[in-house]
Each structure stands twice: as structure tokens, then as C-alpha cells.
């Protein structure tokens, strides 16, 4: 049970980091669906930075920078130019996949994956009772309190929600919703960058093409599940993280691997249906 919890936490961490910022962008009224791409591209850049500077800090920083730039591209198109978020988001996801391979081929001359013994893994820390875990998990826990604090206690958190609910009210009060959205997306980008760095330089120290493997999407699902509420998003994150961990755990009870691996996806659908079920009668209303 304890191991299952630890696995859940590890598997939730990238979703968690992504969903924290993602919830904020959602609060400002922009659902960022390019998270999968942002995570992948920042995984790559985390490895790149790590390799060139042989320092995990440089890796994490370049991962965050990549996430930031990627999200700013999204913001430029969707917030500033008001292009359709689905079109831009989907395209950026696909672009990130191809771009990571192109870059890997250009820099490392391989296309499938890259590793090098000189790279430095993000250190683990060790606590009594709890044991070893990545520094980034500790950071995520601290970040959670910061996000919680900012979201519920500060002026900034209040304005984020106002931007999503009635942007005119906010601009009438002299605050630009556009700049708030840019800020939220920037924070989101940095956080996704952390998630990407976690995948490629903490879980292991290598980049494998396509290694984000749907985690960005699960984070988006958690954000939609939370519907702008930070705590509900986190509930979603742990729900989906636990489902992923269970997908592994169940195999040791002899479940067919494919069926066990479907679990998180089925759970997302069930969770969404339960949370949003409107009943047939209401739905009939025009």
C-alpha cells in the first residue's frame, strides 16, 4: 500500500506540475491543450541543457525555458491574435513531436533516444520513514503550497478568476486580462518545463522520442475535471496518477496488460461523466 502510494505520487508529479499552472490558465478563460507538446519539448531541452553543461540545474532551467517559450507561442497565437485554441493547441502538440526528433537528430545524430553517462540526474533526497524521492517532488509539494496560497489568498489569484468569468469587469477595473493570461500561460509553461525535466532528468537521464506518452493530456483532463478549481484539479491529478499506478499494480495480479493499461483512460471518462452529468431533462433545454 505504501509502495502504491509512492508510485502514485511519482506518477502524479508530472501531471501535478502541469495541472497547477494549467488550472490558472483555465481560470483566466484559456484552456491550454498544448501541454503534451510543451512537456515533450521541455523534456528534450532538459536533456540538452543537462548534457551541454553537465549540470542538472542547467537542464532544469533549459527545460523551463523551453516550456516558457513554447507556451508564449501558444499565448501569442491564442491570446494575442485570438486564434482558435484547438487548432493551435493540436498543431503545437504535433509540432513538438516532430521538432524534438529533428533536434535530436541534428544535435545528437540519433532519432530514437539519447543518453550519455556524463549527464547528471536531479538529486534525490532522503527523509526518514518516507525514504528517497526526487528533489522535484519536494519542490512540487512546496509549489503546491505556493500555488494554493496565491490562488486563494492573494490579489493575483482573485484576478485570475475574474479574468475568466468576466473579463470586461476586470478591464473596467483597469487590469488587462490579456496580460493576466500571458502571465498565467508563462507560469504554466515554466511548470510544464519542470514536469518535462522531471521525466527526462529525474525519472531517468535520457530522452526517448515521444516520452511524454500522454501525460500532458491526462493533465488537461485533470484541469477540465477541476473546472478552474485548483483543489479539484489536484484531486483529478491524483485520481489519474493512481489509475496509472494501478495499471501497473494490477498486472502483478495477473490482469492482462492491455486491459490494465486502459484503466486511467476509462477512469478519466467515468470521472468526467460523474462530475458533469446533467441528467437528460436539463439537456433538453434548448
Amino acid at each position, binding site marked *: 500500500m505504501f509502495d502504491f502510494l509512492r508510485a502514485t505520487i511519482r506518477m502524479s508529479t508530472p501531471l501535478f506540475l502541469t495541472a497547477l499552472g494549467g488550472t490558472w490558465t483555465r481560470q483566466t478563460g484559456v484552456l491550454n491543450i498544448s501541454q503534451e507538446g510543451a512537456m515533450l519539448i521541455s523534456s528534450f531541452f532538459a536533456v540538452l541543457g543537462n548534457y551541454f553543461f553537465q549540470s542538472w540545474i542547467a537542464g532544469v532551467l533549459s527545460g523551463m525555458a523551453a516550456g516558457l517559450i513554447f507556451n508564449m507561442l501558444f499565448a501569442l497565437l491564442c491570446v494575442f491574435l485570438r486564434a482558435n485554441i484547438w487548432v493551435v493547441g493540436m498543431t503545437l502538440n504535433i509540432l513538438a513531436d516532430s521538432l524534438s526528433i529533428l533536434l535530436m537528430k541534428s544535435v545528437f545524430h540519433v532519432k530514437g533516444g539519447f543518453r550519455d553517462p556524463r549527464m547528471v540526474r536531479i538529486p534525490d533526497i532522503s527523509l526518514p520513514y518516507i525514504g528517497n524521492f526526487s528533489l522535484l517532488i519536494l519542490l512540487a509539494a512546496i509549489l503546491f503550497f505556493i500555488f494554493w496560497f496565491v490562488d486563494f*489568498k*492573494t*490579489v493575483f*489569484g*482573485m*484576478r485570475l*478568476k*475574474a479574468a475568466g*468569468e*468576466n473579463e*470586461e*469587469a*476586470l*478591464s*473596467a*477595473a*483597469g*487590469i488587462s486580462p490579456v496580460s493576466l493570461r500571458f502571465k498565467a500561460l508563462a507560469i504554466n509553461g515554466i511548470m510544464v518545463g519542470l514536469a518535462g525535466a522531471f521525466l527526462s532528468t529525474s525519472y531517468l537521464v535520457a530522452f526517448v522520442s515521444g516520452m511524454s506518452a500522454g501525460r500532458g493530456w491526462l493533465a488537461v483532463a485533470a484541469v477540465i475535471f477541476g473546472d478552474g478549481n485548483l483543489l479539484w484539479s489536484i484531486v483529478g491529478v491524483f485520481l489519474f496518477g493512481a489509475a496509472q499506478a494501478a495499471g501497473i499494480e494490477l498486472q502483478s495480479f495477473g490482469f492482462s496488460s492491455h486491459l490494465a493499461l486502459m484503466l486511467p483512460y476509462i477512469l478519466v471518462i467515468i470521472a468526467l461523466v460523474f462530475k458533469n452529468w446533467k441528467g437528460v431533462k436539463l439537456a*433538453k*433545454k*434548448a
Partner: protein
Amino acid sequence: MPSLWISRLTKTFGTLRAVDDFSLEIASGTVHSLVGENGAGKSTVVKCVYGLYSPTAGKFKIDNKILTIKTPRDAMKYGIGMVHQHFMLVPSLPVYKNVVLGDEPTTRGLIFNHHGAIEAVRHLSAQYGLNIDPLAPVHSLPVGIQQRVEILKLLYRKAEILIFDEPTAVLSPREIEGLFSIIREFRKAGKTIIFIAHNLNEVLAVSDVITVMRKGKHIATLPRSEATSEELASLMVGRSVHIPVLEETPSRELKPFLEMTRLTVSGDRGKDVVKNLTLTVHRGEIVGIAGITGNGQSELEEAISGLRFVKEGQLLMGKRDITHLPPLKRRKLGLAYIPEDRIKTGLAPLASLKDNALLGYQYKPPFLKRNFFQNFRSIREFALHLMERYNIMAASENIQAGTLSGGNMQRLVMARELEQQPDFLLVSQPTRGVDIGGISFIHDRLLSLRRAGKAILMISADLDEILSLSDRIAVMNRGEIVAVLPRKEASRNLVGRLMLEGSFVRGKEASS
């Protein structure tokens, strides 16, 4: 005491001069009203003052000091505040958060100081007798109170000059009285108030000075003591007031066409906003629904057109039960509908003019061949026909509808719906935003439909329009029809009073 100077203000939208070389001095500590017809430029003036529009030319001064106002924030800096026609509130947040949004009290510059905000709001509320619970969530409040929240926002920002753009349009009479006493309270406290309203009685009741605008120009400024409503009206229109064009009702047997029986309809928040409404529209008559905006008219029109679910009651059209029919079936039975919100409902701004013109005809010959294929030639011809007949100015029928000017968008919707030769026309705010020439054109069209024996239900906030066009006038108040009056019995005064105080005469004249 500072007074506000507006000096030679001009604001153009494209080729339109919405405000034209307008100058005015507003003395401090007074209530200064702006009056004028729809589109006279009143809102544009105050929006320029508040920094929502940047003037094409002109200056603002307070005590001979030139103001640089680029954004509402700049205006607030000079103590200028505005209560918008549409409230700028965040519904899910409580009152105090709405009030302080953008200028939040903080501890250590970061943490939102809930306690401080609540106290500040409570204090202000008590000081001006506004009587508001700072903790109530805004969406749970009635409009009158929501408006006070808007006012609190200004007070909180220490506004000295308060602008009210049509604040009474959404209020009940009791609430209007409340607002006026608040305004008087402000004046006593030395604040300057700029007040815009269409109802001249209201204007006369609350103002110290009244300025008349017409077509963006300054026409006259009168002290309250020298103003009468007749004089103001003729100054506003620039000619003797429009005489109703309605010819006598032909005395023939009236056949009911649209029958609404005990309709109940819920609003977006789930509250019943149309309650138990019964009304009949006959062939060959125009029934006007008068009422202050927000009394359930929008929901009623949506219910009749099929865009909103009818909770209880029955809708008959030509003896057919249409209560739960989809819009298409209603259209087939002869309904045409000119919605209140032309841009959000009446048009698809990103689609071509042609596509917009076709809506409602798409399944009819000759636009449909073999029941399935679109006949592009006749669609194009139809669009061109509408453009010509209704004088829609556009470069081409392929242009995006959103690129048309506001007036032309109106015409497009109007043209499309009228061209259906409907048996029943539901029209909401037929001339809102339409210029003088357009107004009489539209009125003529409505009347000729009536002559052709069609049934027309007209919803309008413009009392004069209602009075001049309707055979019968139904007055709506809080989701109910409080009276149905034949035109002969409907005086401006009576209808106005019914609109405001529905319950006062309910029952007496509510039968038809």
C-alpha cells in the same frame, strides 16, 4: 470645488461622427443630465470622458488643468468614475471582492486583506446609506442592488465625478426612487453626477442642469428650473414630435393567431423570469410589449421562437400547439423572428453575407434542389435582391457579415425575416440602433404586414415606438403581463406607470 470641462470633443467611428465638436462645462456638486435620442452620442461622450474611447479630437480639463485620459484607470486617477449600462461584475465573487477588484487592499503588498476590504465596503455602504451586505455573492442579488455594488466600486475609488449611463433602465420604480435618494446623498456630499436617461420625468426629477444632444452636437443646456419635458423633447428631435402613423384599426373580425397560455419560462440562472403569462395576438394586429428592460422580455421572445424551453403553459400558433416544437417547425408554420441581439443571435458574423441571408430559407425551393442540393445561383440572386431592396450597403454578397456597419447588420436581419412573408412576426427592438430614415422604412414595413393581415408581436423598450405602432399594448413587469390596453386607452403616462409599478393596477385592466 473642481468642475469638469469638456472642450470641443469629437469622436468618429469610420465615417460616422458620433460626437461632433461637443463642449460642455459641468459644475461641481451638481447633477447634470444628458438627454438625446438613441444614437445622439450621449454614451460616446461619457465613454470618452471615462477613457473607454479615445477621442478623435478635444480636451478635458478640471480646474483648467488638462487631463490625459487614455484608460479608465487614468480617469479614476482624476476621480472620474462610471456606472456602466451593463454591469461589470464578476457574478461568483462576493460583493466586497467585486468592489475592490483592481485596487485590492493588501497586507505586505501581496496577501489579499479580506478583512480590510469587508470593512471598507461596510463603511462606505453605511456612509451613503446603501445598505449592502459585503459578503453576499453578487449573482444572488437583484439588479438594483447590483447597481449599488457598481456605485460602491466608484466610491471605493474615491470618485468625485460619477457618471450614470441609463441607470434607471433596469430598475423597478422603488429601486429608481432609491437610486435617486442615493444620488441626492452624493450631491450633498459634494460629488458631481453626470446622469443619462431617456425618461424625461426621471431627468427632471433628479437633475440640476440638463444638456440636450442631437446627432453628436450640443444643442442646449438648461437649468432644471427652465426646463419642461415638452421643450426638451422638441429640442432632442429637432422638429415637432413624431405623430403616430397608424391608421385606424379596420373594424373587422379578429382571428387569434398566436395564443400564449399561462407560460412560465426560466432564465439562465434557473429562476422563473416569465410567470404565468397569457396573451393573444390576432391576425392583422400589432401587439406591443412595453416594459423596462430585464423584465422577462428576452426570455419570452426566446420561448416563442423556440430557443428556450417552456417550463409550463402552452403556445398555440394558428391552432397548432407549438410549445415544444423546434424552431424549424415553428418557422414552417409561419414564424419570423427578429431577435433582440442581432449579432449574437441574428447573425453569424464570420459567415458570408450570402450565408446569413439564406438562414431560414435553406430548406425551401428554389434554394434547395431535389430536396438536398443548394442552388447557389438563386441564393446569390436572393442575397443581391435583399441588398438592393433593403438598401444594405456592402461591397459584395460574399463579404463577411461581421464587416458590415451596425445599421447594415440590422437591415440584413430585418430583410431576411421580413422577406419570409411570415404569418406571424416576432420582432424585438425593431429600430434600436437604426437611423431616422431606417426607422420609418421599418415602421412602414411592419404596418404593411399588418395591413396584409399578419400577426405581429413587437417587443420594444422605446415607449414612443410602442405607442405609435401598436393596436394593443401589453405591459410587462417582472415576468407578468400587468395590463393589456387598446391604443386609444393607452397614454404615455399610464403605460409608463404600469411599466414601473405593475402591481398597482394589476387585475383591473389585465383582461383583453
